[in-house]
């Protein structure tokens, strides 16, 4: 392994960390320099990630190590699964950074915002690249810390309340993960994540401890993955600015939780051990219940962002569901959904932000006829919403298809009912929005038309930095569905991961 191969994962983390730290020291009015730093970080990271993707697909491995604790080095490693998440974060970070620059134009404390924003992404890619549980834990906690200032960025009473709740949930979750990690470390040390898990040999001797550790880890990770009943922070955190919501819901936080569950089940415990310890049914039921519960709650919301937030609660649990089914086809669905949900949800939050920033439309009842004023944004919204329902050929359909097949494969046909039910509920809460947007009668006056970008429908319907990322992610959501069969799609990569995990 050459030096470059060793340093690559570290450089991916540093490519956003260093610009972020420099941004903290900038004055508010150094806009060009800040933008330059932001964008150079984005593009350097993209270049590094693409290099690693090519490398891994050719069979190279990337690993960086630093001694830290006894039997637990700090390890950053690029394998197939971690790169799936890293790629997603990097692409969405790019879109979200551009969006945030446009969104926050002229508002105070931008250096602080972008500083923490970069830290947040650094923590996310660190967590994705983490080679063992201790490293994962480290970045998991850093992610909590880096996100908090963003959630409370507006500094209002509501923002602070949301921030405190966010902290209470995530720090408690982090402590549970810590206990789980220590417990496993006591049994087996903290070796690297291993395909098929590294705990199988301890099954007979330590089954009670292993079960407890699994429960601790899933409970702790479930907080960030917004599993019922520890999902409460997510809907409340929607008071944060739209780019932060995008970060929470698609790029970083809930994904970190879901990704952690994937890692724990596949690479720490291993499918066989989870099966033998009979840990699958509770997780499966919990995921299934959260899917339905999130959908029902979403239906009851009158505010757009809140509806989207509960929709996330439901959609992220698809990933957990796919993992809990413990079959290869469902696993493909789960890992692909990690990407698909991110793309679609980020699109939806961008759209909600566009409506709010341009016309001050926050509530669903104000959305009537908004498609005539902002056709492109509404088109993107439609793509995202249809994708969430699972309409072909958008990304979401691919996931549901594999989850359904996977459920049949392992003989859990009832899961199909959950999928269909959730699809119906999704339709119930998204179709009215689409109908209102396109066919509703526009009001005489919008709540407050800020005239961003020029104010005429079409390319000038809002600030270009808000519109462009929205359209970009919407188009990508369609592309990953249409091109699912090709070798460059997230689905193909998910198959690669699963082939390794299930040694097919």
């Amino acid at each position, binding site marked *: 392994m050459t030096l470059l191969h060793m340093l690559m994962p570290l450089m991916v983390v540093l490519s956003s960390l260093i610009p972020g730290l420099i941004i903290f020291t900038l004055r508010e009015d150094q806009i060009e320099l800040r933008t330059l730093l932001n964008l150079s970080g984005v593009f350097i990271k993209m270049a590094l990630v693409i290099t690693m993707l090519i490398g891994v697909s050719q069979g190279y491995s990337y690993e960086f190590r*630093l*001694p*830290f*604790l*006894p039997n637990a080095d*700090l390890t950053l490693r690029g394998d197939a699964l971690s790169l799936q998440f890293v790629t997603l974060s990097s692409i969405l970070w790019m879109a979200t950074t551009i969006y945030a620059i446009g969104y926050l134009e002229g508002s105070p*404390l931008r250096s*602080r915002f972008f500083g923490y924003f970069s830290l947040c992404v650094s923590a996310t890619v660190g967590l994705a690249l983490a080679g063992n549980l*201790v490293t994962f*834990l*480290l970045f998991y*906690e*850093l992610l909590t*810390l880096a996100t*908090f*200032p963003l959630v*409370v*960025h507006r*500094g*209002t*009473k509501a923002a*602070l309340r949301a*921030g*405190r709740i966010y*902290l209470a949930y995530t*720090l*408690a979750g*982090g*402590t549970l993960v*810590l*206990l789980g990690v*220590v*417990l496993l*470390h*006591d049994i087996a040390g903290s070796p690297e994540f291993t395909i098929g898990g590294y705990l199988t040999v301890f099954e007979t001797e330590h089954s*009670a*401890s292993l079960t407890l550790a699994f429960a601790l880890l899933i409970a702790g990770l479930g907080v960030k993955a917004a599993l019922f009943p520890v999902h409460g922070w997510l809907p409340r955190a929607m008071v944060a600015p739209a780019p932060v919501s995008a970060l929470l819901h698609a790029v970083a936080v809930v994904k970190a939780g879901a990704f952690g569950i994937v890692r724990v089940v596949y690479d720490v415990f291993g499918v066989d051990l989870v099966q033998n310890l009979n840990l699958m049914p509770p997780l499966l039921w919990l995921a299934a219940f959260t899917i339905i519960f999130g959908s029902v709650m979403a239906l009851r919301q009158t505010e757009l962002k809140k509806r989207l937030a509960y929709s996330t609660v439901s959609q992220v649990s698809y990933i957990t569901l796919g993992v809990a089914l413990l079959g290869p086809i469902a696993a493909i669905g789960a890992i692909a959904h990690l990407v698909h949900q991110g793309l679609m949800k980020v699109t939806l939050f961008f759209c909600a932000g566009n409506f709010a920033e341009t016309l001050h439309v926050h509530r669903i009842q104000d959305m009537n006829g908004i498609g005539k004023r902002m056709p492109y944004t509404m088109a993107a919204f439609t793509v995202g919403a249809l994708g969430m329902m699972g309409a072909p050929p958008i990304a979401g359909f691919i996931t549901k298809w594999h989850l359904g097949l996977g459920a049949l494969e392992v003989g859990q046909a009832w899961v199909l009912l959950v999928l269909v039910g959730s699809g119906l509920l999704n339709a119930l809460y998204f179709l009215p929005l689409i109908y209102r947007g396109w066919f509703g009668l526009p009001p005489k006056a919008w709540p407050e038309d800020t005239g961003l970008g020029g104010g005429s429908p079409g390319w000038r319907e809002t600030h270009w930095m808000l519109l462009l990322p929205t359209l970009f992610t919407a188009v990508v959501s369609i592309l990953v569905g249409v091109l699912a069969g090709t070798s460059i799609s997230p689905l193909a990569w998910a198959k690669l991961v699963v082939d390794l995990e299930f040694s097919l």
Partner: protein
Amino acid sequence: MNWALLSLALPLLSAFWVLLVRRAVSETILFATLVSLTAALAAFYQVQSDPVQTLLLGDWTLPLAIRFELTSLNALLMVLTATIHFLVGLYNRFSRHGSGRYSDYWPLSAVLHSALVALWLSRDLFNWYVTLELLTLVAVALVTLSGPKAYRAALGYLVLSLIASLFYLLGVALLYGEYGVLDLDRLSALAVDSANTRLALLLMVLGLMLKAALWPLYLWLPDAHANAPTAVSALLSALVVKGPLFILWLTLTQIAPVEFAQQLGLIFALFGSVALLSGAWSALRTPYLKTLVAYSTVAQLGYALITLGLLLRWQTPELATALWLFVIAHALAKVSAFLAAGEMQATFGSKELIAVRGASQSMPLAMFAFAVAGGSLIGLPPSGGFLAKWILLQPLFAEPAHWPWALAILLGTLASAAYVFRVVALAFDRYDVETELPQTDALAQWLSLLPALVVWGLALISQPLMLWLSTGANP
């Protein structure tokens, strides 16, 4: 050993010098501290090749001589003491809110420095008594530097400390009467399990607990630490309470009969758990910023007490690594927290917690320092606080019977997170805050950030650090 003696003597000599000359006071002391730090580093380097170095003062032989012993643990503690004195001295010299270039802070802090180094090096019960007395008197004098408002707190501190000294001395006298020696190793070889030994140790334990402000004997601490000048609060919380803890650890592991130590250990561990929660609870309730930080010391000493207790209970010397990691991590983090809190209090002109509203905007560096230090107090990875907690948690998970202790640690973690973020969240509240920003002092804020960065940087040297502590603690 000569380097260690130099590190010990220099601050003391410089204190006498400035008392005589009364010129360039702060400069002299700062310079002496820096040289003392260098000497401590040299001693630390030396001890790597020769793990245990002994010196008999004045060339007498035991039992008459006073014995000094240098291990990698106390060499590290000497480095820590000198580093913190130097940093805090810089703050006191250059901050607009420091005590001034000619104040009595300088000679007093230098004496404090020497007394601490003497305490780390001594292995003799009576010599420890002398260093403890010196430490207390100087500390009380330092507290009074903030003027008449601190007199009451200082008086309370003085009275309780003198009572504590009496207890300790009584215990020492009993042991001397019983065995006729004061040297730790000699006592360790001679001591038997008798009623007198137990009584003597109990008296010493009470005195030391009172001096170290270990729960439930902590009541003097919040007042004294909160009312002292900022630089002094930092020294007191970071270093002074750790001195008696050091003696407590050595006497109980070396002299105490095993059965007695185990009984005490259980009580310590229980008290420690209570301290974690009750200290945090008080920190959550107090309306004053520096009092909050002071209560955090009470809570954090709970970790040390649990660790010491379990070490005695299970007779596992390995836990000493965790104990001293806690001490080092807490010392660094607490210096940051106190300097940041004091700087904010002075800048905003109010000691109320509510004054830090919006501080993330007006004093971002100080607030950042507080938050980073807080991260280590909570024990977030990879900070020094986390390292200590990690080592402590390992044996707790080895057997299901020990799991309740892990629960106490978990609750303590959450409780410390609650009071740290009580401050941090308030700092992000920028609704309704006056737009006119106060004049801030960048250098002072950077100085407050430095130790917090060091405590997180410990992650980079975690493996050698653990090695030094374990070899130093179990020679």
